[in-house]
């Protein structure tokens, strides 16, 4: 089992979701986050005073999958999120120790899908 965390551009979310549904990954958690990597933020000006290097809005996806779903999930995220420009984001893949479905108390692989 792996936990896939992806940080993407907010306006790519719908495309990524669409690609994920195509690969039959339906269980995702989405949150709004701020951040920047190499890309600089957009200049903002308030009452004539410039603020630069601000953090950009990003979207963070968390998807727990069984091992045979890791590759398709990563491919789907790339397909949906890639624009080729700086700031497209990152995908992190982490080992997942356990997973429990609260309603049924199932554990492990059975609880993920």
């Amino acid at each position, binding site marked *: 089992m792996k936990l896939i965390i992806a940080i993407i*551009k907010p*306006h790519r979310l*719908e495309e990524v979701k669409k690609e994920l549904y195509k690969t039959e990954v339906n269980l995702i958690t989405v949150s709004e*986050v*701020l951040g920047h990597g190499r890309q600089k933020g*957009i200049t*903002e*000006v308030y009452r004539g005073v410039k603020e630069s290097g601000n*953090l950009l809005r990003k979207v963070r996806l968390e998807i727990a999958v069984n091992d045979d779903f890791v590759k398709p999930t990563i491919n789907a995220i790339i397909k949906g999120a890639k624009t080729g420009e700086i700031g497209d984001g990152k995908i992190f893949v982490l080992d997942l120790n356990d997973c429990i479905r609260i309603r049924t108390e199932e554990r492990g692989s059975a609880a993920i899908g």
Partner: protein
Amino acid sequence: MNSGDTAFVLISAGLVMLMTPGLAFFYGGMVRRKNVLAVLMQCFTILCVLSLQWVLFGYSLSFSPGNGFIGGLNWWGLNNVGLMPYADYSSTIPHQAFMIFQAMFAVITPALIIGAFAERMKFSSFLIFTLLWATLVYDPVCHWVWGTGGWLKNLGALDFAGGTVVHINAGIAALVTVFIIGKRRGYINRPNPPHNLPFTVLGAALLWFGWFGFNSGSALAANGIAVNAFVVTNTAAAAAGLGWAVLEWIVNKKPTVFGIVTGAVAGLVAITPAAGFVSALSSIIIGFSASVFCFLAVSIVKPKFGYDDSLDAFGVHGIGGIWGALATGLFASKIINPGAADGLFFGNPQQFLIQLAAVSAVLVYSFTVTFVIYKFVDIFAGVRVSEKSEDIGLDLTQHHEGAYTVLE
């Protein structure tokens, strides 16, 4: 000169002024949150720019005696527009009171068009377009219908508070801009839920409130016609708001707050040309029918043809305005306003034909000239922001501001 009339018209002018910020919130709530400031900015900018245009030369082009098509320039900078009445427009209020009341109409009309090209128009091009449109479309049409010697006025067309001048004019212009600027990126396969419906409700409430000034102020006197306009304005808005909610309840199984406020605005649009000429019972029919027509336009016709009239400027103002102008030709009654005319249902089919002619003339003129202006701006400056700017949002890319913070 009458102090009651003067006070009433000045207060009405203030009420109409509030409609433009009201419209800003009405529209602002509907866009995605990365574009809300851009909408507020466009509305506020129009308030500033058109107020100046009007005083400098817009009022003169619209209302000074000229030919049937357009006024002259002899009232530029309010020359000869004084503090004594000008009898052609009103013999009981100072000429400048009439001027400033009309200024607020000139402000809100181009602001209505924003709903069509929201979320993708370049700010600089928007500014050029707005100024050209106000001068080449609004001012002439205003002169036709309300100005001394205007050809539609001489024809006998009835437009109490701006069904043709304001709503049809802006509505058809909105439709033209939609086709030139194109759809928002990702439209159709990616619906955009409104980012703040409470803003939209607040905006609609401010519009309804301001509309009392818009319609009953158009009587230009604190008299019975003003009272009639006030009553039918409120009644039509109520019938239309309720009507839309009921339609949704039947068609989509649930009534929505977005629906009820959209309906109320459609009703306000439709009653505008009729307000000084129709009875309260007629206004219920006008308001309810406005909801039916606008509902069909925005929830059936628009998706079917797939054009992106983003905030339904045409669907509500264009369709509601056309219905209202024609309904005036059906329901107008001399019992309400002895100084006007009867409509088709009161034995005068001629009036309906006159209304039809006025509607067609404004549709054709506004469509054509808006097309030329918008194309012109597009060729020389480009009406649309870059794809990247559209993705990031107009607030940050056009104005270097963000409406909301994520972290403090």
